[in-house]
């Protein structure tokens, strides 16, 4: 909106173990960046008088549930919004408690950047490893390792370097390209918005400085057009000539760019056609790109419904019923071989059965344990799935939208797993080579 340069949006989340200071850090960021309103500060001060012995508790800004404030822990993700002249931010404060890992995954899944907090006294512990691993699994492009509570270790550079070295031992095992280490005190605000006078040995940016400048321009995938058909748009309007034959395919572009006149393929049928029109409420477009929500019309009148996918011919996706994926298991009842689940992928929902559990990750050393009997709550592993209908998909590493799925337990309808597909072994080979007639 604002004049010439559009304001960029950065989505980030905090993670790490219980009590490492995640909620306090977000409170500090909001407080020191002057993003809090007077009534919010008053509410903080009011609750401090009752429960905090006069000290205000910055974590209360995000710990919005009564049960959270009573116990001083975070249970579910809280989202906060703030802006600086440079960027807009959506922050997800996620819980550190192992029991609520599912909520950490929820908050992290839409982030471009994750801040993993560590308590400088404790160093790297199991939850730090688990959350770092999940951030890598989700392919969050940017990571900040915030070494917090430096005030409690006398601002020791040695301690900072020790913890940093611990991380650097296992980071190469992960898929994270961009990592930044920052020593700070969330409680006192050192290196959060203002540089700290206690850490003359640290030369990098403050946390906010880094959040404002980290390069995020191309986190969307513009290769290989994918439009999962979400809703077939058929106006029930027999008298209007233009609308009588309107047959739109509505959806959000999962990747790539689409142009009027472009040849496309519809899957699973394999029929080809040409894009006749890109329709939007604001007028027709010549081209559209990920992640815009659009409605397209094709030249040919094909049988297409929700769950189908319109794809570009340059990079074809995989298609099949035998899938190989990494999953993060999020339910008390373990994942079992042979059990049926609903699988939701893009706009498609199918029945699925887990045919094998290939491996489980040991979160303490990232070792792979082959063929475990089951995956229990918070386990991460690799599985094979067979679906009742073919999925049209890409590997998660190249396409977040067509490479991800969730598993839903039948009966309770609980969401029990987040799944990330391995790339297809081969691209779809359509049986029709001609255009639809």
């Amino acid at each position: 909106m604002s004049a010439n340069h559009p304001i960029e949006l950065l989505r980030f989340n905090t993670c790490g173990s219980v009590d490492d200071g995640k909620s306090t850090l977000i409170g500090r960021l909001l407080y020191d960046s002057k993003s809090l309103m007077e009534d919010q500060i008053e509410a903080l001060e009011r609750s401090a008088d009752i429960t905090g012995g006069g000290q205000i508790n910055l974590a209360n800004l995000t710990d919005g549930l009564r049960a959270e404030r009573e116990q001083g822990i975070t249970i579910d993700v809280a989202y906060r919004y703030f802006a600086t002249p440079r960027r807009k931010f959506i922050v997800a404060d996620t819980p550190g408690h192992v029991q609520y890992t599912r909520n950490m995954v929820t908050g992290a899944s839409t982030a471009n950047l994750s801040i993993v907090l560590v308590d400088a006294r404790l160093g790297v512990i199991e939850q730090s490893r688990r959350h770092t691993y999940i951030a890598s699994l989700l392919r969050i492009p940017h990571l900040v390792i915030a070494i917090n509570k430096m005030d409690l270790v006398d601002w020791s550079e040695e301690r900072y370097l020790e913890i940093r070295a611990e991380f650097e031992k296992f980071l190469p095992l992960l898929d994270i390209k961009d990592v930044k280490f920052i020593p700070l005190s969330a409680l006192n605000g050192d290196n959060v918005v203002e540089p700290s006078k206690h850490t003359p040995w640290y030369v990098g940016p403050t946390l906010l400085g880094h959040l404002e400048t980290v390069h995020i321009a191309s986190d969307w995938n513009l290769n290989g057009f994918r439009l999962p058909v979400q809703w077939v748009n058929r106006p029930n309007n027999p008298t209007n000539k233009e609308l009588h034959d309107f047959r739109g395919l509505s959806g959000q572009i999962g990747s790539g760019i689409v142009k009027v006149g472009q040849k496309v393929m519809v899957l699973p049928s394999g029929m080809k056609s040409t894009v006749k029109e890109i329709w939007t409420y604001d007028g027709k477009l010549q081209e559209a790109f990920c992640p815009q929500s659009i409605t397209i019309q094709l030249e040919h009148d094909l049988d297409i419904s929700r769950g189908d996918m319109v794809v570009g011919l340059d990079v074809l996706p995989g298609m099949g019923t035998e899938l190989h994926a990494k999953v993060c298991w999020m339910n008390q009842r373990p994942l079992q071989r042979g059990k049926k689940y609903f699988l939701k992928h893009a706009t498609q929902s199918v029945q699925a059965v887990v045919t094998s559990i290939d491996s489980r990750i040991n979160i303490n050393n990232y070792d792979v344990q082959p063929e475990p009997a089951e995956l229990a709550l918070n386990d991460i592993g690799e599985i094979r799935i067979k679906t009742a209908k073919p999925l049209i998909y890409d590997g998660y590493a190249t396409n977040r939208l067509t490479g991800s799925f969730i598993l839903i337990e039948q009966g309770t309808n609980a969401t029990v797993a987040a799944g990330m597909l391995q790339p297809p072994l081969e691209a779809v080979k359509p049986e029709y080579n001609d255009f639809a007639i």
Partner: protein
Amino acid sequence: MSSYHLDHLQYLETEAIHIMREVAAEFERPALLFSGGKDSICLLRLAEKAFRPSDIPMPFLNVETGHEFPELLEFRDRRAKQLGAKLIVRTVDQAIANGTATPAPGEVSRNKLQIPVLLGAIEEFRFDCAIGGARRDEEKARAKERFFSFRDAFGQWDPKNQRPEIWNVYNGRLNQGENMRVFPLSNWTEMDVWEYIRQEKLEVPNIYFSHTRDVFRRGGQLLPVPPPHTDASKPDPFAGGRPKPNEPIQSMVCRVRTIADMISTGMIDSPAITVDDIIGEVAAARVTERGTRADDKASEAAMEDRKKAGYF
């Protein structure tokens, strides 16, 4: 535009359109909660963007407290008509009359009484999903809510046990009697809403703009003086919401920043007469929009408690 880049409003818009289409595709009987307020005005435009050139494939639903600003109701009806949508209105008055809602002794606000009315309407029309305009930045219990917020057969929200919501793959599955509340504007801020209203040139009820009105001071708020009670055969719906002798009436140039009903909406002292003026005020604001609402001031957990009971 040759750079393939969305600005933040376009990003919020495409996220919301995607959610609305998921609702249309996955639920059998969805409804859209339309009050005439600024957030639900944005919802309507997003519905147009999601579904045109087809009709918006769900009716609009509004729960009336009986304490509404008349300007709001006029606007609501007119806008629904313009869009060719079916508007269903259920009222707290009806619910009190037929016994499904009972006011607590001495309670003036009808905010909580909206809950049984909403749940009644959901049951009456067998709605399996209601789209609402709530935003996470409004309040800290809301800040915890999912886009697809599951409600059990009693309409209750269980904040300690929400479904994980990963990427934008939403789980809309329900068993009999359960339903879903869906909030496409979850990630929008008050500023985003006004910038969107400006960008889309959306009409809003004129009480959002500065006008002269009689108000009185109560509990740190400037409350509007309700319209006179004319129908003597019925009890005064605004009983308790009228100024007492020790609450002098003053005429003031003011507007609303957020609309609840007349009894709990504080007016703000403001000369803003255009959307640009309002955006300027939001940018300079030192209190949140909910800071002007009495219903949220009741306690730290007022919103959480209402939501657990089935509130929007």
